[in-house]
């Protein structure tokens, strides 16, 4: 009976997490992620109800136990998560760098000075 209780608990947690994640702001690109997430949630529930599936998968690919299989899958998932997060951060950094640069340049004004630097004011450029 104890096993049933932990199963119930885990299923509730998985569903809550999935629902929360599904409620993200949406665009077309998110559709794929949501389908994947639903698949992942279904798989999670399935493996909670039938833990032996991991053993079957493990045996299929030549890994000893199901727990090892889960660990390997987790390592791969974590690494890909780290990488995609890093790349997304880089993209984000690019965007706010461009924004900050635009602000800085607009604030500084054009390179041909109109005011601000005294010496250049008294030296109008011949070419402009």
């Amino acid at each position, binding site marked *: 009976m104890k096993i049933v209780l932990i199963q119930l608990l885990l299923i509730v947690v998985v569903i809550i997490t999935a629902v929360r994640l599904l409620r993200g702001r949406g665009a077309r690109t998110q559709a794929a992620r949501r389908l994947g997430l639903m698949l992942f949630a279904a798989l999670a529930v399935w493996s909670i109800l039938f833990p032996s599936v991991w053993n079957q998968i493990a045996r299929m690919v030549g890994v000893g136990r199901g727990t090892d299989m889960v660990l390997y899958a987790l390592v791969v998932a974590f690494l890909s998560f780290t990488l995609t997060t890093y790349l997304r951060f880089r993209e984000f950094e*690019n965007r706010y*760098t461009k924004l900050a*640069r635009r602000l*800085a*340049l607009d604030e500084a004004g054009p*390179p041909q000075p109109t005011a601000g*630097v005294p010496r250049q004011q008294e*030296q109008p450029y011949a070419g402009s």
Partner: protein
Amino acid sequence: MTPKDVNDTEEVHDTWVVIPLYNEEQVIGDVVTQVRTAFAQVVCVDDGSADRSAEVAATAGARVVRHPFNLGQGAALQTGFEFALADPSMKYVLTFDGDGQHQIADAVGMVARLRGGEADVVFGSRFLDERSKPGFAKRMVLRAAVGYTNMTTHTRLTDAHNGLRAIRRPVLEQIEITQNRMAHASELVAQIGASDASYVEHPVHIVYNDYTKAKGQSLWNSVNILADLILR
């Protein structure tokens, strides 16, 4: 403070000196004043300094572009480039470090070589003669860095991480630095190597005193630079 004789020559106005600036209030005034004995137009890109660097630079006669917060030296250079490109009469850009490790005579020589039509880009190199004296470890790291850069960018240089560079306008128009932190030096070389721009190296003297050593890149940072380059 006002070397009028320099400004009277028309040709000085075709060059912008770009100085990335981050917490250099002790020395930036002298650096700007010195640079302006040879080049009339100096732009300091203040990269979110916590001290009075920007004010000191402006008082010394530089134009100052201020990043709203710290973005990194690569980002500061790109901002300086875009500022200079907005000046239609700009023909050459010179990059110069704000910590006083560069010699103005070297900078003048490099721009003169651009003017002479020798190449589209002149890179400063501290390894072409024996004037600069980096420590053994620093020398090794810089050698490794330039080896990596040469290997990955179709260029043959002796010093890839040197802040002194002189670049002609058409080349500058094609450059876009996206590496905000220190990996920008290799990125710049890579973009120049990928274009059909010609380049030469110019022997420069890097001054290693207590100040420039303290402000310079620590050896540990070379690990970060390498990681930034690989995970592009």
